[in-house]
């Protein structure tokens, strides 16, 4: 197959590029967010850039109760990526709503709150609590977690479990707060899972969460991470993430998609948009470069300007054309 290049005319000034996005009714100044678990609740990154300037801050997945997470070591560097087994350490929803969310809201940032549970009832309770909290821009339902009621099978590995979580959550969240289901790439057919959560009432999907990986310790000759397996992330997985976005866009032409996985540069972000993403998230690369999210915004603007592209709508899905 061979394509003719798109023709958008000559280069324009970066100032002429409009990066704003309407995400299911939520206005974002630009399409770049942080990825859940890679930005805590935004406070630490505010040292490096103005978090209110970014498209949104997605907070670390919060659970009902405080959670200690897994034993260390919790990470291993891998080629162009890393494995983590944090185990969703966090303060629990009460502390989060009392302390973390208000800071973000008062700071003027758009707060996308990620929630995670061990069983469907947890998600429902979290949805209710977060849905009532003031200032929430959107909710991301991280269903890439083990379901303790189903032999520890990850919700998002199964269309039915995925459907059930979203279906039960959605009614507890106000209509004007969009709900995104976060999917795992570790499935045979990710478009089917996306279809299931859309049917269940999700306004969109976030793809991808980490891939399941394993690495050995040279000293113990046993799994290196306290959690044995861990989640693989970073530029190493980007081609898998872009493919997942592209497959979902192909199957579901109108479903909003937040693309995430290995974004390091403005062109990487553009790749996701071309594949069909409405907005993107920067995760692991923050660890390499804490200023990365705003750098990606600037670089994305430049990538569009140099090609004469005035808005994201012009190029979204362009790879499908």
């Amino acid at each position, binding site marked *: 197959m061979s394509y003719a290049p798109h023709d958008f005319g000559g280069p324009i000034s970066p100032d002429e590029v409009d990066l704003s996005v309407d995400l299911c009714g939520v206005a974002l100044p630009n399409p770049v967010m942080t990825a859940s678990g890679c930005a805590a609740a935004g406070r630490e990154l505010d040292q490096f850039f103005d978090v209110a300037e970014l498209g949104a801050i997605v907070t670390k997945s919060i659970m009902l109760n*405080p959670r200690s997470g897994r*034993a260390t*070591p*919790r990470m291993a*560097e891998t080629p162009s990526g890393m494995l*983590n087994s*944090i185990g969703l350490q966090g303060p629990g929803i009460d502390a989060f709503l009392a302390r973390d969310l208000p800071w973000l809201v008062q700071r003027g940032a758009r707060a996308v709150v990620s929630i995670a549970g061990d069983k469907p009832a947890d998600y429902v309770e979290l949805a209710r609590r977060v849905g009532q909290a003031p200032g929430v821009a959107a909710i991301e339902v991280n269903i890439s977690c083990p379901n303790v009621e189903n032999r520890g099978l990850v919700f998002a590995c199964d269309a039915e479990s995925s459907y059930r979580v979203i279906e039960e959550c959605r009614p507890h969240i106000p209509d004007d707060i969009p709900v995104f289901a976060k999917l795992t790439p570790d499935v045979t057919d990710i478009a089917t899972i996306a279809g299931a959560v859309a049917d269940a009432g999700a306004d969109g999907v976030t793809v991808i969460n980490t891939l399941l990986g394993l690495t050995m310790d040279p000293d113990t000759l046993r799994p290196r991470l306290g959690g044995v397996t861990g989640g693989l992330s970073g530029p190493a997985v980007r081609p898998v993430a872009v493919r997942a976005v592209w497959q979902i866009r192909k199957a579901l032409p109108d479903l909003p998609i937040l693309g995430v996985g290995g974004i390091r540069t403005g062109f990487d972000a553009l790749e996701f948009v071309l594949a069909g993403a409405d907005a993107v998230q920067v995760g692991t690369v923050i660890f390499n470069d804490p200023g990365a999210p705003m750098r990606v915004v600037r670089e994305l603007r430049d990538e569009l300007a140099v090609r004469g592209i005035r808005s994201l709508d012009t190029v979204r899905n362009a790879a499908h054309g």
Partner: protein
Amino acid sequence: MSATQSAGTVVSRTPVGDYHHLVIAAEGIAEHARPGHFVALAIGGVDSGMLLRRAFSIYRTSTTGRHGETVEIVFAAHGKGTRWMADLAPGDPIDVVGPVGRPFALPKEPVSCVLVGGGYGSAPMFSLATALRDRGCPAHLVLGAATTPRLFGLSDANKVGSSVHVTTEDGSTGTRGRVTDVLGDLVDTTDAAVVYACGPMGMLRAVADVAEDNGAWSQCAVEESMACGIGVCMTCVLPVEGEDGIVRMVRSCVDGPVFRGDRVRWDAVGTIPPGTLGGPR
């Protein structure tokens, strides 16, 4: 306190014993750095397969040299990233985040202090000694290492220490043995109120015990594996008991790296000890 990300440039890299002494020109870091702070360095360039930053204690800083603001560290080349750093040459770019973490807490009163550095762990001790003596606290230094090439900063020690004590495991310099072999006596004879320590986990644990046995506080700078170094990833945790008696998994990058020795559950590092807040039930 706020960390800065700075596009730094290597001023010099000098082998010192088994280590490398690296001087980086970087703006916005030196003036805020306090003893015990660290920097997190990006490694390998933009197309490197190594994504994660490496953390290094700040050895010293300057705001007035001919290279402008500089930050200095001392490092051992042992893994992939530090081996890459061992090839750094003057003029090479290197991205620096710092100063990060909670520095050593300084006593309010002019009490006597003992400062223990194991291997490259002595790097932050010289600026600490100066700061202590500036506020009237005698600063007795103990440097220890397995071998002489792994001792760092003997000449600095002689300049800034109220007294200097050296141990090597092979006996090639100073007392044969470990820092803890001389520590108890020293705390006693100097009537030290605080013991400061930086070095391997095993040493810190032993130092904290000796301090406690001898009625001194300890302030230990720990070294846990870090992915982000700025508090956003939760990889660098260790179990620390709070004032409320509850053990929490606490980030060593921003809630540390310096902790009160009696608060760290040294025995349980690498596990989630029973009773930890949010631990498995």
